[in-house]
């Protein structure tokens, strides 16, 4: 037995986030996982919690109902600024906490998730296939119009999920900018609380205007139906809308860009997709596992009582961060985990999390990635990086979703 207050226990570590190679989690994270898959973790605000970094424990923890998602201590960014932002929201913008699935526990979470989950089922999402194919096709036309080389991130990775979201939610395509920019600004942990509260509020106010518009004139989409269903409060609908805007595009966009980089950085990978189009769906799963864009882990979970988890005593209030990247590179779960093997049967990875907070939009993200890479390989089989792999600009490490900043490609 170990305990965070036990002087004989392990010394707390700081979460390693600096990568030696853009595609691989820090080597130190692998050592921690293999030696101490549950280990005391020092958070930037000096909170003392835990890091869970292998697959078995990670999945168990995310499925453990004794943990809450409320009031997490973040593992990246400046501890003081993070705390100040939380405090600013609590004091001056409490309505922004309402309706966000990642900030509520049961029974509210169960109620809110069930009201929305019907719109994101495998079958329901499949109904958007043609819309997404058209959006992807339009973007590839734009590639040709712009001419080689293009920035894949600007011309494809962001527009595809954003325009798909606009189409699903029944809002004008020009509105893209209204949710893309504030989402990116909020996700930048290198800024101060005062710099982040503005875009957070801006995104929320935009969601509020959209909801007001739909209330006056319903358009048969998710938001309109949530309003008409009458089972969510006004604040909950605005919160849910704001959450869908931010979570619904940035993640998939980041994954598109990073996955394209991984595929084009080694010609044999791209050629595998060209030769095996029927394996693209599986290749997307392997890319999700291998890249795990939420490189710092899932939103920290808080112990709601003094408890014992897999032989470790965790005190009430202590945070536990599950390293999704550590879990998805666990050699006990995936043989040769650091190899991107597009042919491997990559089931049950944790790129979308696990447990009750597993990504609501995961099937939409999958579909967009599958359609996107299928169309890219069909129309641009000669696609390649326009700069050396060591010249591709990567995001800083203190972001929620890690990936490329831009990706110049040519054909």
């Amino acid at each position, binding site marked *: 037995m170990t305990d965070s207050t036990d002087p004989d226990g392990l010394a707390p570590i700081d979460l390693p986030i600096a990568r030696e190679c853009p595609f691989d989690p820090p080597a130190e994270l692998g050592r921690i996982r293999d030696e101490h898959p549950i280990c005391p973790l020092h958070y930037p605000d000096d909170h003392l919690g835990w890091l869970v970094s292998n697959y078995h424990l990670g*999945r168990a923890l*995310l*499925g453990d109902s004794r943990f809450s998602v409320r009031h997490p201590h973040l593992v990246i960014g400046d501890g003081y600024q993070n705390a100040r932002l939380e405090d600013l929201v609590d004091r001056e913008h409490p309505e922004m906490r309402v309706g966000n699935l990642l900030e509520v526990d049961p029974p509210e979470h169960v109620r809110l*998730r*069930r*009201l929305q*989950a*019907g719109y*994101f*089922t*495998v*079958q*329901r999402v499949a109904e958007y296939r043609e819309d997404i194919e058209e959006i992807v096709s339009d973007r590839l036309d734009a590639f040709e119009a712009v001419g080689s080389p293009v920035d894949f991130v600007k011309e494809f990775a962001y527009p595809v999920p954003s325009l798909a979201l606009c189409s699903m939610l029944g809002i004008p395509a020009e509105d893209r900018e209204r949710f893309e920019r504030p989402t990116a600004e909020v996700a930048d942990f290198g800024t101060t609380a005062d710099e982040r509260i503005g875009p957070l509020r801006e995104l929320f106010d935009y969601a509020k205007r959209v909801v007001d518009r739909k209330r006056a004139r319903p358009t048969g989409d998710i938001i309109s139906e949530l309003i008409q269903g009458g089972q969510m409060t006004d604040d909950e609908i605005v919160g849910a809308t704001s959450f869908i805007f931010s979570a619904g595009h940035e993640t998939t966009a980041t994954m598109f860009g990073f996955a394209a980089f991984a595929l084009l950085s080694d010609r044999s990978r791209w050629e595998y997709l060209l030769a095996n189009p029927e394996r693209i769906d599986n290749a997307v799963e392997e890319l999700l596992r291998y890249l795990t864009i939420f490189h710092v882990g899932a939103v920290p979970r808080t112990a709601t009582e003094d408890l014992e988890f897999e032989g470790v005593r965790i005190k009430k209030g202590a945070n536990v961060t599950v390293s999704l990247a550590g879990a998805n590179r666990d050699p006990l779960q995936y043989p040769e985990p650091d190899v991107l093997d597009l042919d491997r049967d990559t*089931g*049950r990875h944790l790129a979308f*999390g*696990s*447990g*009750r907070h*597993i990504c609501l939009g*995961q*099937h939409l993200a999958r579909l967009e990635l599958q359609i996107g890479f299928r169309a890219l390989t069909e129309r641009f089989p000669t696609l390649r990086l326009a700069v050396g792999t060591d010249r591709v600009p990567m995001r800083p490490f203190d972001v929620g979703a890690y990936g490329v900043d831009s990706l110049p490609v040519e054909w």
Partner: protein
Amino acid sequence: MQIMADQDTCVGAGMCVLTAPDIFGQNESDGRVVLLVRTISEEARASAQDAVDSCPSGALTLVEPDPS
């Protein structure tokens, strides 16, 4: 073998539908699991087990039928 689904535990993730679409569907209104069959044939056993293991909320179980 019988497949059992705990509706209170299910979060509507849909991993079962992705894994074994012949056995599982999702409720249109709240995304929760719908069993398309109750009894799992020998041939379908591996994919049913895969779905049980893939379920992020632990809502699915495979059980031997009650002999009585």
